[in-house]
């Protein structure tokens, strides 16, 4: 209890220090506020800027719901509203009272020659107080060539520095040396527990339904927390409230369709977007029953509706349903998927205070079904949560923006349950776990001067593991004591404060430097036991034995634009310390194990690196060059003689080159090239004989490297028809154009042709995969 009091005191001191800086000015001031949206679709624009021509260093950006608020002294002003890809608007206002200014921007259609229009705010990368952030608009990268022609925003993200694909063709990512499970993936605020389909070859995000993607690999806003390495914030499109539109695409392995339109024009809209693969339909063509009787597909369904009740109230309802199904005749089945739902209410209290209240639900489940001989078994696992979140944004003045809020979440984990429907086998019920997490956050963005901006933030996270259930104490990985806790009784609590700091100093329009510090806490941990991420990975909560995973990260960045912001250069360095990381002990048994905690080892990690990116954002030719030099190491007691060793995701060099060229109004060409040092991996350093068979002898964890990886992809998009009513295009791509046989994994075995020797064999997946897809919109 004493500890908590101390923390509360600390919070109060912190809050008052944040609020202290508001006293200084007492001029007569008025506020301009409103919502900025796209004139043709009614979609609100995130990150659009509102500036005042007469006061150069005053400006703001719209929040996640398109709302902005600016407070300036009484006077006559020209308010400039701009957003990349849209024509800017200049609105003259005579500010003698508070003013509501809702603005609809027209999309800029003549994309090729737009260089000068709205050039003013194209140096957003310089001025924004953000470091370690990647932002992607799916529209901007739709011509980037991808595997099987499936547009995938996560794969595009892995082409930027510091973000690595978990494996060939994978929809998972390693961010700044973190694990895939240390990324918080949010779709309209709801947690997505498994963001990949088909063992990771595709991500769960259908780019047709996505409006905006932001990945925070450094310091995330204080409202987000719960994972060590990054936050991926995905916003779904709201739907067009001006007219009905249908879009779709037919690709090599999947087709997609989206329908959107107004519920009431200008007031509300809906969006339904679906995607399904049909690889299994080809299996059906086979005359061989053993082949045609298999299933392998996934689908995604995104739905969203929004309605503006009046100028100050708006509600949103969004949902995602995705499922993977794999079935090998009637003998074996595996299906898994995510479901999320978010109900949100935006309320504008006054011209300075905006709030959003969210009710969020998310569920991930998988089931393995085996039906062989006389046995019928299922292995089921579920993780779900329900959450309430109440956020405020207080636009105190032109200089201060305060975000604050509270949240509460209940998680329920149902680890692998073995159910026996038929056969001589016992049902195994592994105990379910209930977890409460709740807390509060506050952050303030303070424009100290025209050059210096400081954002301070604090997030308080309380974690309670509660009964009912038997809870175990362990010593040396053996159970020493079992205690029963009744329903709702707190078994273990953790209270963590997570401070955050962002500072940016703008030297001039073309140069800035930024610094950030962040602490992150993770109380839900993913246990992975195989060489690739599978749907059967197990979630486990912090407990008496498992302390929350912690990380501290500092990063520093230098940003430079030249040639009228046409070229953007950034260089960032980071260092991350990680504590209480989980690792499985050798030969751990993770299936249906009620005492899984006894199979764990704990350690620490460190990751550091340099990320350089040169981007050309505008013009007929655009693209980027990304380079990352990094190191990620772990130290776990009981592994590798307690020495530091490279983590699996450690790759020294990582290069990506992306180029997109608009040849003419009909054709766009694109190419990407990636290169990275092979992952650290454990290979045998010898062999011996036991039980009459050759066994391999391992001397060091991750002491070897996979071969270096490189690959060239090419793409071309042909605009077939473009009128105001109908648009269609054809996309071609070649994945791995020069057919390099990149090793996916390496196996060691006795040579089947010569039993006197042992050999290494590599598995490689995709060499030269062409694809074609047709997309339309009307």
């Amino acid at each position, binding site marked *: 209890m004493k500890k908590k009091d101390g923390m509360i005191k600390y919070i109060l001191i912190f809050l008052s220090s944040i609020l202290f800086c508001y006293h200084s000015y007492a001029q007569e001031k008025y506020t301009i506020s409103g919502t900025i949206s796209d004139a043709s679709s009614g979609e609100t624009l995130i990150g659009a800027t509102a500036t005042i021509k007469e006061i150069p260093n005053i400006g703001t950006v719209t929040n996640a719901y398109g709302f902005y608020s600016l407070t300036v002294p009484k006077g006559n002003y020209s308010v400039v509203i701009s957003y990349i890809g849209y024509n800017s608007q200049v609105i003259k206002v005579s500010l003698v009272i508070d003013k509501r200014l809702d603005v609809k921007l027209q999309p800029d259609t003549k994309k090729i020659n737009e260089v000068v229009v709205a050039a003013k705010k194209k140096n957003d990368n310089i001025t924004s107080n953000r470091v370690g952030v990647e932002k992607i608009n799916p529209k901007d990268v739709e011509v980037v060539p991808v595997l099987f022609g499936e547009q995938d925003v996560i794969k595009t993200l892995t082409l930027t520095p510091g973000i690595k694909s978990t494996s060939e063709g994978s929809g998972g990512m390693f961010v700044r040396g973190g694990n895939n499970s240390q990324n918080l993936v949010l779709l309209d605020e709801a947690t997505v527990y498994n963001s990949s389909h088909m063992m990771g*070859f595709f991500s769960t995000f259908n780019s047709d339904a996505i409006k905006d993607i932001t990945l925070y690999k450094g310091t995330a806003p204080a409202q987000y927390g719960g994972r060590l390495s990054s936050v991926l914030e995905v916003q779904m499109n709201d739907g067009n409230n001006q007219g009905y539109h249908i879009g779709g695409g037919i690709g090599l392995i999947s087709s997609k369709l989206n329908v959107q339109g107004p519920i009431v024009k200008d007031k509300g809209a809906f969006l339904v977007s679906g995607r399904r693969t049909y*690889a299994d339909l080809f299996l059906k063509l086979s005359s061989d029953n*053993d082949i045609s009787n298999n299933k392998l597909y996934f689908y995604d369904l995104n739905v969203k509706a929004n309605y503006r009740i009046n100028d100050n109230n708006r509600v949103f309802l969004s949902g995602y349903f995705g499922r993977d199904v*794999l079935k*090998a005749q009637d003998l*074996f089945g*595996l299906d898994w998927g995510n479901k999320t739902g978010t109900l949100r209410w935006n309320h504008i209290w006054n011209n300075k205070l905006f709030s959003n209240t969210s009710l969020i639900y998310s569920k991930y489940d998988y089931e*393995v079904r085996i039906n062989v001989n006389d*046995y019928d078994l299922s*292995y089921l696992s579920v993780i779900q949560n329900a959450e309430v979140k109440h956020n405020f944004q207080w636009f105190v003045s032109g200089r201060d923006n305060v975000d604050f809020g509270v949240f509460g979440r209940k998680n329920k984990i149902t680890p692998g349950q073995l159910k026996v429907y038929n056969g*001589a*086998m*016992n049902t*195994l019920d592994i105990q379910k776990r209930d977890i409460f997490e709740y807390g509060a956050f506050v952050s303030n963005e303070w424009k100290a001067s025209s050059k210096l901006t400081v954002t301070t933030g604090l997030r308080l996270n309380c974690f309670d593991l509660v009964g009912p259930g038997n809870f175990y104490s362990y010593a040396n990985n053996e159970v020493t004591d079992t205690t029963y806790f009744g329903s709702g009784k707190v078994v273990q609590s953790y209270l963590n404060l997570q401070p955050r700091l962002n500072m940016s100093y703008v030297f001039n329009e073309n140069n800035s430097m930024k610094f950030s510090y962040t602490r992150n806490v993770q109380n839900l941990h993913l246990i992975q*036991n*195989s*060489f*690739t991420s*599978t749907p*059967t990975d197990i979630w486990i909560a912090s407990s008496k034995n498992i302390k929350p995973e912690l990380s501290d990260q500092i990063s520093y960045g230098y940003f430079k634009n030249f040639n009228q912001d046409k070229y953007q250069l950034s260089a960032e360095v980071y260092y991350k310390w990680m504590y209480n990381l989980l690792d499985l002990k*050798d*030969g751990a048994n993770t*299936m249906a194990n009620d005492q899984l905690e006894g199979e764990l080892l704990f350690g620490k990690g460190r990751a550091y690196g340099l990320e350089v990116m040169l981007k050309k954002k505008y013009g007929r030719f655009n693209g980027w060059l990304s380079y990352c030099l990094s190191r990620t190491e772990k130290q776990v007691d009981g592994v590798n003689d307690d020495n530091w060793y490279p983590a699996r995701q450690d790759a020294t060099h990582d290069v990506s080159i992306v180029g997109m060229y608009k040849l003419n109004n009909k054709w766009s060409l694109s190419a990407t090239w990636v290169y990275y040092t092979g992952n650290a991996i*454990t*290979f*045998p*350093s*010898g*062999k*011996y*004989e*036991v*039980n*009459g068979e050759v*066994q*391999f*002898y391992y*001397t060091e*964890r*991750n*002491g070897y490297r996979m071969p270096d990886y490189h690959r060239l992809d090419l793409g071309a998009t042909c605009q077939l028809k473009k009128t105001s009513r109908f648009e269609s295009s054809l996309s071609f791509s070649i994945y791995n154009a020069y057919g390099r*046989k990149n*090793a*996916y994994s*390496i*196996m060691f075995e*006795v040579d089947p042709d010569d*039993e*006197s*020797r*042992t*050999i*290494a*064999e*590599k*598995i*490689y*997946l995709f*060499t030269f*995969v062409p694809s074609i897809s047709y997309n339309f919109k009307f």
Partner: protein
Amino acid sequence: MMLNMKSNIYLIIIILIVLFSGCTEEIEVNLNSSEAVVVIEGSVSTDSEYSEVLLSRSKDFSGTNTFDGIENAYVQLSDDNGNSEVLDETSSGQYVSSEITGEQGVTYTLKVVVNDTTYTSSCEIPTMIRMDSVFMRKEISDSFWDNDNDTVINFYIYYTDPADEDNYYQFVAYKNGEQVSSYVASDLTTDGLSVEQTITFIDVNSADEDDDEDEILESGDMVTIEMRCISADVYEYFDDLSSSSTASTPTNPETNIEGAELGYFSAYTSEFRQFRVTN
């Protein structure tokens, strides 16, 4: 039936990889050399014929698959009834007991000295659980994974697992006296039940060149099925050994021999059944 979810999931992954045009190719990997480490395989059986200790050394990956025995070592077996015996080396690296026969509930201790280094281990023989019955049946395979539609020869082993205690088993198959396969099982999902285990061979008429010679049976072959009750740490050892190649970070299975890095010492019960393959 052997339930091994872990390996089923790997199979799925492999199927997916194949579906996504996965191919394999032999490659050259530059592997370090390692010090030759002592490997000990010790066993005490309730059937004296099989109480022996094998000593060998590990070698570099690039070497041939022949492993020389360690000669002239000191190998001693003793039990908690006060019996003790120094084993004779009958062939290179093979030390065989002539006096000690395993008994249920008795703890055995192994002591090996090689070049002044001593290795020790103790293991208790668990209570014997007997096979209820064993059948040999020639049939058409309906397994999705392999041998699809092949004619196979299955050996079905039935036993009753005692309720409310942990039991560990090892099933070994011999073809014409040579051990050809073995695997371990626990009663995690079968506690107190009547359990079926299956060992599969391929009929010579269905065999193709990809099939391992050891797995093919023809008329006249003699097959011996052995069921062992083993200790928990020996079960862990063999379970790890069989899954280590597919784990994300392969490791050497944890040995129950003090001082050693590789190998095991197992004291177990044995029961055999013999079958002659006919047409």
